[in-house]
């Protein structure tokens, strides 16, 4: 093999591996079977707001700094820092700290994570750690992820294990030094289907035990064990005729609390002249109610000693998100983007009908600003 052939082959292998990234396992630009030779620094800012008819609820402003740095030909380190500033009131129903009681909520969350990835002989091994701190909630997590690339680089197998240890100290004194442990196992496969199509499928099991109740919701009493199975499949198709990419995704999730959900999403990434691209997207979500969720009027269905919640997040509903992102890539490896997303939940939008009655419609919008520099 000549030097040129070897370089061409290495370039092809790096390019295809970059397309084989698994979600959450490794960032796309660090997904090669060899460590990437360029670093990334990105800054993102989120402005989130939600409301119900006649009442503004939560506002969250959240800057995030992300960086990926190659340490050597075989090792990368990456990490992010996030600071959320939250104010307002949680959505109705029956939150003792909500605006409904006139008290409102003000909180801050600071979170950070770091991951070191080592590449060797068609494999990648990553070790990660994460920390998140709020006034009333602290979370520590660690993960290990292993990926194996097939010889032709058309298939990637992934396996991951994660553990999180959380502590809850509610500001109203109802939950003090409460603990929660969660263990996650992930199996995944990514397959090149053709020269223009990729598919990936991951199965995640989550086993948790500890304190799951919401101390800010009256009479809220949830089981102390929780098992979640999530199956996520995503498909990307490049469409040469339009110089565009179609992204499709589906997730099925079963929760031992009794609720099941289905999520479908689609996005169309359209390339435009002068380095622009525009991405309209749509997401549909539907879930059934948890086994211990009870419809209004509160506290209908409450029996002392039995699990109970009136938390609308565990009710039966459907939700739709519409999004639009515009990005521009400048010379020198800098990309800037802005996105607007609009989200709405309605009981009547649950697939097949049968949404929980008596709940207020819930809406949210979030605006994103991002800038990324590769070096």
């Amino acid at each position, binding site marked *: 093999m000549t030097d040129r052939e070897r370089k061409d*082959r290495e370039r092809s292998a790096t*390019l295809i591996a970059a*397309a084989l*990234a*698994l*979600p*959450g396992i490794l960032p*796309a630009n660090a*997904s090669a079977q060899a460590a990437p030779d360029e670093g990334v620094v990105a800054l*993102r800012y989120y402005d989130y707001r939600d409301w119900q008819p006649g009442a503004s609820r*939560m506002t969250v402003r959240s800057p995030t700094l992300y960086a990926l740095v190659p340490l050597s030909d075989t090792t990368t380190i990456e990490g992010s820092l996030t600071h959320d500033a*939250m104010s307002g009131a*949680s959505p109705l129903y029956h939150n003792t700290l909500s605006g409904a009681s006139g008290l409102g909520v003000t909180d801050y969350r600071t979170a950070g994570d770091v991951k070191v990835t080592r590449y060797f002989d068609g494999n990648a091994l990553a070790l*990660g750690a*994460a920390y*998140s701190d709020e006034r009333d*909630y602290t979370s*520590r*997590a660690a*993960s290990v992820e292993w990926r194996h690339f097939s010889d032709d680089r*058309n298939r990637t197998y992934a396996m991951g294990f*994660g553990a*999180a240890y*959380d502590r809850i100290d509610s500001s109203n004194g109802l939950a003090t030094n409460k603990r929660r442990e969660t263990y*996650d196992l992930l*199996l995944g*496969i990514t*397959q*090149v*289907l*053709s020269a*223009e199509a990729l598919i990936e*499928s*991951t199965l*995640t099991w*989550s086993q948790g035990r500890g304190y799951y109740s919401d101390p800010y919701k009256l009479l809220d009493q949830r089981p102390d064990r929780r*098992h*979640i199975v*999530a199956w*996520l*499949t*995503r498909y*990307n198709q*490049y469409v*040469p005729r339009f110089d565009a990419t179609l*992204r499709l995704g589906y997730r099925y*999730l079963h*929760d*031992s*609390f*009794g609720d099941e959900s289905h999520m479908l999403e689609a996005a169309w990434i359209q390339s435009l002249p002068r380095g622009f*691209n525009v991405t309209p997207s749509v997401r549909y*979500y539907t*879930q059934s109610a948890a*086994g*211990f969720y009870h419809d209004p009027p509160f506290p209908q269905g409450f029996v002392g000693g*039995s*699990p109970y919640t009136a938390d609308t*997040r565990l009710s039966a509903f459907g*939700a739709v998100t519409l999004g639009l992102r515009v990005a521009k890539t400048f010379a020198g490896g800098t990309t800037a983007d802005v996105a607007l997303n609009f989200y709405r939940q309605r009981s009547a939008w649950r697939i097949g009908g049968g949404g929980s009655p008596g709940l207020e419609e819930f809406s949210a919008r979030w605006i994103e600003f991002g800038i990324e520099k590769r070096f």
Partner: protein
Amino acid sequence: MTGSARRIRANRGARASARFAAVLWIACALASCATFDPPKPWEKGDLARPSMRFDSDPPAAKATQHIYQSKEGAAGGGAVGGGGCGCN
């Protein structure tokens, strides 16, 4: 229905769904192996486009997932590791 009966039913449901999802995932994985038409190395240029990456923007994906986690019954899939409460 008593609380313990609800819990037993929920646990049975979780185990059944876990088995269903595992079987379905394995079946799909095998099916994809059997039907795809993998390209040669010199045919993979389009696959390397940024738009073809499953997570081309890790911080954006993480933030969006955090929003959904805080507003819907349960979240997960595609990643391992923690990320805080997101309760409000």
